[in-house]
């Protein structure tokens, strides 16, 4: 019973932060679009860094959510069965383009970061 209550409180804290993020997002949407969940992420980070919120207050629920994060993408992926019709004519070309581009982008980004970090560490030694 105590555990259920604890989980409910943790979910509530996360949800409130998410809602505040959405609210701020809609306030500034005329200037720049930043999704509410990204703003919520920044808010939670600030609360943790500022010691307003203790990590233990949300840790159990957040590690559970992160562990099964992939699950929550399933329904959107199922949605492809409807939306693929829009690009039916060039679907194979688009898939090949996205495939090649994804490999290039991930490789270049990993490699550049890796090289810059090792360069920095060498200079420090």
């Amino acid at each position, binding site marked *: 019973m105590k555990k259920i209550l604890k989980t409910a409180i943790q*979910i509530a804290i*996360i*949800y409130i932060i*998410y809602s505040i993020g959405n609210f701020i997002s809609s306030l500034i949407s005329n200037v*720049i*679009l*930043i*999704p509410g*969940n*990204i703003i*919520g*992420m*920044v*808010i*939670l*980070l600030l609360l*943790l860094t500022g010691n307003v919120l203790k*990590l233990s207050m949300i840790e159990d629920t957040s590690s559970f*959510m*992160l*562990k099964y*994060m*992939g*699950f929550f*993408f*399933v*329904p*959107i*992926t*199922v*949605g*492809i*069965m*409807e*939306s*693929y019709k*829009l690009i039916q004519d*060039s679907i194979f070309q*688009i*898939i*090949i*383009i*996205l495939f*090649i*581009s*994804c*490999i290039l*982008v*991930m*490789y*270049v*980004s*990993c*490699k*550049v*970061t*890796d090289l*810059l*970090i090792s360069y*920095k560490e060498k200079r420090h030694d």
Partner: protein
Amino acid sequence: MTDIFSTLFFILLTIIIFKFSLSVNNKFKIAFLNPILMTAIIIIIILKLFNITYSDYYKGGSIIISALGPIVVVLAVPLYKNRDDLTKNFIPIIGGITASIITTFVSITLLCKLFGIDETIFLSLLSKSITTPMAVESTKMLGGNETVTILAVMITGLFGAALAPMIIRIGKIKNNIAKGIGIGSAAHALGTSKAVEMNEEAGAASGLAMGVTGLMTIIVIIIFA
């Protein structure tokens, strides 16, 4: 009443099939047996077999999707735990993300030219590496088609999550922050779900990269569009 029943049924069905896909994935460890894609394919087959429309499934699906917002918020936790390592590597991180955005724009432009893709679709693919709400906004500014963008973001995320272990192995990427930055900046939240699985530091870097890449892409588009 039947509505509540079918909503619960589709949520339960998704959970059970996902559990099954996870165990298959743990046994065989094949990149393209990605549990997300595998679950989706099994569900699509079931829907087709029983003549169920996507909008029926969506009644349950939308409840699962609605949890995605709070999950991105929770990415602040690994970010917080690894804050020292991340701030220490501020310049490499920004460098890696900048390289990622340039590679996206250049590769999409060249590949679309090569395959003779029409202008509207080309514009819709430029924001494929960033998280859906930001990608949709970028496409609006560029004058592309939003649905095509959502589809491209989805496909990119699936590719990113499936290919990440291979790219890291072949590219001989040792540093966990570098792994996370590459995954998050190339394949947004879906890729991040893979980075979180690898280790906490990579997950933190990926969550950070996802937010910063989206923001920087939008700013670049505002300046140049």
